[in-house]
Structures are given as C-alpha cells and as structure tokens.
C-alpha cells in the first residue's frame, strides 16, 4: 500500500512539475563521449548528543566527483572518481549491454586503508556493489515512466544490505528505497533534466558485545537529476537525519545534507 501511495504522490508531483513531458516514457541513452565533473559538499550538524556537547558550527567537507563511460564491446567501461580530504578513490567497472556489472575495481590512496581492513574477496565484493550503485548504471537499458522506481525491484534494499556489511556495521540493517521518476524539467542553467525524487530509509539494531542494544535509524530525502542529452548526473542531493540509540535511549542525532552539482563537458 505504501508503494502505491508513494507512486500516486509522485505522479501528482510530476504533473505539477511538467505536465506535458511527464506523461512520456523516457529511454536514457548514456553518452560515451561526454563526462561529468562535480563539486561535492557534505554538511553535518549534531542535533542532539547525549554527552551534552554540541559543535559550534556544522562540519563541512568538500570534494569533487567525476564520471565518464566509454564503449567496451556491446557494453561500457565506467570510471568514477572521488577526490576528498581522506584521499582520492577511483572505481572502475565493466558493464554489459543490459547494465550487469562484470568486473569492478577500486584503487587510489583513499582506498588503501579500506583495502587493508578487508580480506581481498570482501574488498572485491564491495567494488562490485559500489559499481551496481553508480547512478549512470541505473540508466543503462532502462526506460522510465513517471512513478517508476530508480532502483529496480529489490536492488536498493540489496545494496543497503551489502554495503552495510562491507562498512562493518555490527548488526544487520534493512533498508527501504522509494525514489520514483518524477518527470522532466529545466535546471537552473537551462539544461533539460529528468528528475527522480523520494525517500531512503534504513534501520537496524542488535545486541552488541552482549551488553547493549545499539540501534540505528536513518531517513533521507533524495533527489537526483540526469541530463536528458547525455543521461549523466547533473545534480543530486540527500537531506536527512540519523538517530543512534543505546538500550532504547537516544544517544546521538545528526542532520546531514549531502550533494553535488556537475558540469558536463567532452571527455
């Protein structure tokens, strides 16, 4: 029922946005000659901290993100880069004509400590999962009508499960992803973009070291815009809260706004 309601809501919003174009089915065609370079920023504010100490100002971390795809047989080779204070990370992947990931690898100085913390097989599996989560991969061999989900059935939940295991969260976490296609609109710089917007949530709890039940609840609103001409991401934002509890008592609540805006240029 919740999905039906969400889809209906999305349809209504899409109608408000662009009544003409929204009714159409879209078929993104990923460019293999253009690339995106994005300025990223994450702002985190402690809303509540059981220690009683709150930071005087939000923490702001900047960086850049990039992506380009090239032809590789019938499929694609993807290169996704991230520059951030903890070091550069590059994710390379080969993707088949229907979007399946056949190979993925993470490298770069920022990845070295993560690799050192994992068994090689775990690290390789994480690369595969991250490759499945590249936004442009979700465009390959897909069509969307308003209300249809960005993540194919079950994929979002599966990625949440896989990644939380990779990140080493000490208890199982379940997720829910509801990010439907809204419609087409015009971005601030005048380019035509397709819009997906919705909600992502995850929660979990578990007895840790036999002594405390630790809980995690996170809810975020997500919006992503893909360029109509290239299917590359133009802009994405996430805005939400994370609440950590210990034995049912709220221990920490943070609000995080994370996003990046991109310039598209020839490769």
């Amino acid at each position, binding site marked *: 029922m919740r999905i039906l309601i969400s889809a209906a809501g999305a349809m209504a919003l899409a109608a408000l946005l662009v009544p003409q174009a929204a009714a159409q089915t879209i078929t993104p065609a990923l460019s293999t000659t253009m690339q995106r370079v994005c300025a990223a920023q*994450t702002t*985190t504010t*402690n809303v509540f*901290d*059981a*220690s*009683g*100490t709150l*930071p*005087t*100002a939000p*923490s702001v971390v900047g960086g850049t993100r990039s992506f380009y795809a090239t032809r590789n047989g019938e499929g694609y080779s993807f290169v996704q880069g991230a520059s951030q*204070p*903890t070091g550069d990370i590059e994710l390379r992947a080969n993707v088949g004509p229907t979007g399946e990931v056949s190979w993925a690898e993470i490298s770069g*100085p920022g990845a*070295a*400590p*993560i690799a*050192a*913390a*994992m*068994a090689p097989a775990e690290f390789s599996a994480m690369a595969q999962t*991250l490759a499945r*989560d590249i936004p442009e991969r979700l465009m390959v061999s897909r069509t969307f009508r308003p209300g249809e989900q960005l*993540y194919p059935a079950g994929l*979002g939940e599966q*990625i*949440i499960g896989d*990644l*939380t295991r990779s*990140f*080493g*969260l*000490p208890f199982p976490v379940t997720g829910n*992803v509801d990010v439907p296609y809204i419609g087409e609109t015009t971005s601030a710089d005048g380019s035509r973009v397709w819009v997906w917007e919705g909600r*992502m949530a*995850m929660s979990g709890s578990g007895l*840790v*070291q036999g*002594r*405390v039940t*630790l809980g*995690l609840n*996170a809810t*975020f609103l*997500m919006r992503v815009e893909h360029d109509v001409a290239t299917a590359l991401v133009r802009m994405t934002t*996430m805005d*939400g809260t*994370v609440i*950590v509890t*210990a034995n049912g008592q709220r*221990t*920490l609540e*943070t609000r*995080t706004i*994370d996003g990046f805006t991109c310039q598209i240029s020839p490769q």
Partner: protein
Amino acid sequence: MKRFIAIAALALAACAQPAPPAEHGYGADPQLPEPQTSPLPTINVARAVGWPDGAGPVAPEGFVVTRFAEGLAHPRWIYTLPNGDVLIAESSTLPSRGGGLQGWIANMMQRRGGALAASANRITLLRDSNRDGQIGEGERFVFAENLNQPIGMALVGEYFYVGNTDAVVRFPYTEGATRLQGAGEVVLQLPHHEGDNGHWTRNIIANEAGAKIYVAVGSVTNIADQGMEIEEGRAAIWEMNPDGSEARIFASGLRNPVGMGWSGGDANALWVAVNERDMLGDNLVPDYITSVQDGGFYGWPYYYWGNHRDERVEIPPNVRLREPLTPDFALGAHTASLGLYFYHFDGFPEHYWNGAFIGQHGSWNRSEAVGYKVAFVPFSNGRPSGDAEDFLTGFLNAEGEAQGRPVGVAMDQTGALLVADDVGDIIWRVAYPEPPAPN
C-alpha cells in the same frame, strides 16, 4: 546510496557517553576517581584538518618554532645520529580486521583523526648540511624502505637497528651513509598478531655501553579482551644482546610502552612512557612515565596505577601475581603519552636541562580532548622534580580540530627539540636562540 550508508555509519561511530567532571591525573600521586564502565566507549577524536599555511604550534616565550621538514608520510619517530643526520620513521596505524564493534569504531575514529593510512614503511634521512634549521633541496634521502611499520631506531656499534612491528632487524652502518644496504638481518622476532596487531609500535634503545638493547612491545588489546594467550610476550619491555641472544622480558604489565630514555644523574635509569587503558571513564587510567625495574610487574591487565584492581579482568585461580609496582609520574588519562626524550644538553634555559619532553598524541576515548601537545616534566638527579608543564601547544584549533598530532621527540645537532607531527606531516623544530650579547 553509498553516501547514505556512510553517513549513517559515521553517526553510529560518533555516539558518545555523558561527560564526567574534568579532573586530571598528573604527578606522583594522581587523583584516581571511581571507574566508570560502559558497554560503549566514549568517543571524541579531534578531526584531522592539517595546518594552514604559515601556522604552527606554540612554545613558551623565548623559543622559536619553525618547520624543520615538511611533506613526510605520517612521521612518527625521530632519531639523531652522532653526525647530526636526523632519521624519521614514517609509519602509520593499519586498520584492524575484525575486532567487533570496538575495532570497527577504532577504525572509523582513527580515519577521522588522520591516524589511519597506508604505512610508508620507510625511514627518511634529513641532513641539515648548512645548519640553517630547515631541510632544503638535496638534504633529504631514503635511508631505508620496505620495512614493516618501523618506529624504533638505534645505532649500536657498527650496526643500525630498526624496530619493525614484527621483528628487530639490523643493518651494517658506516658514518655518513645516506642509505642502508641490504634487507637487514633479523636479530629478534617479536610477538605479532596477524590481522590486528593492536599496539604496533616497537621502540628500541641501547644502554650506554651498547651491551644491551631494550625493545618496547605493546599489548594486542585494551585489557586482554581476547584472552591472555595472544598477549604472550606483549605489554612488556624486552632485553637482549646486540646479536639477539639472551632475549628475555625485562619488565611486564606495561600496557603500551613506547617512548624510552635514560634519565641520567645519580639515579640514572631506563624510563618509559606508557599508554594506559581505555573505557574506565574520562579520568582513568592516567598514562605515565616511570623508571623501569628489572623484573618489575606494572599491573596490566589486572591492576592499574599500583594495586588498583581492574575488575573487568578476571584473575584465573591458578595464577599468582606479583605485587604490582606503582609508576613514578602520571601524565593524565587518555593523553596518549607516547614520545619521551630526556634533554641532556644546555641549549635551553637551565630549567629544561635533563628534563623529560613527552609527545602526547591526544585522546579519543574522552569526552573532552586532552593531550595533543608536548608536555615537559623537570628532572633533577634522574628523578622528577616538579609538575608537568605544557611545552608545545596549539595542535588543536579553535574548533577543536587537529591541525597536528605530536608523537616522537628528539634533539637535533644544535640542541633544538624536534617533534614529529603525524597529522601535519611535519617535523617541528623548537629552538632557543642565543640571548643578545650584553652592551
């Protein structure tokens, strides 16, 4: 999606306990409040941001702080050769594998604090040929590489010794050499726990005659959390002959012994800086420096600060423990007192002669940050003779972020103090210029 999960994971790692009153345990008779145990560790590590251009730590009036060398890879430890060459061990903490919640949190926090990185596994030689107090073009050399998390360095006779995390190795050395030759000879294999080696630094020091070498080996875990079997030979200072023979445990019950030095004076003795246990509250257990007695047992993991019982650790019925020794001088809980250097020189004002400089890397298991400075303890005749003082501060900025974290301390050929900063990737030089000549 990965950003979403990373944000949630970081929030989980940042959960903290309420702050108890801030009272510090320093000196020969520190305040020891009642233990405060909790299933969740208090976590507050200063986020590593590095130094803005032109900024630096602050020393007492009259001292001048400059950048001796920059652009190193996690410089942790410093050793000055007799010819004045300065050696820097570039080495860093590796992420632990496994370790449950605490290991996971430790990894997250160490990443945040800038302590976690691929280890350079290298020793760099800095030769200040023109004695201008700054390493310039052509004054930097790779002295040794392909090591394994090296920290300890000591020249004993014609050999240069390196304390890798898993072994002490030695190389032939000739005066003036800018690079060691060969792969090195293993003279003593050290206890090593694959996957998560815990306290990994292995400092080394020789006695004055060069007849004995001492090796500091930290514990795997906080309080033998995984049992005592994997702690065999750890939390101890080993003694050996220069060829590795007659290796034995010289002193034990020292959770994470790191900095070592000889105090000099009438009561000359080996002293060690010890990083004490976590998760007993903000003000327990104080780190300390202490003289080390041959055969001495300092309590870990069963006791702290003498015979204060740590009730979290069960004493097996078939184990009979010796009476634990009380350390000499407390340096505050969670300060991560790692570096230790006795200033047996007269280049600073007399107050500092023969005193101990301590590099305090800074806290993670305390609601308000402590450490993140170089402390000084005055000594007289080889014993502490006054209160601990701040010597080099300003490593935290106004927002509480870590611009740098001091670790190893040593003296250069001119008598200036050198401080390794493994977040700023800088070697700081603290000099006391000659007083102006009288008119």
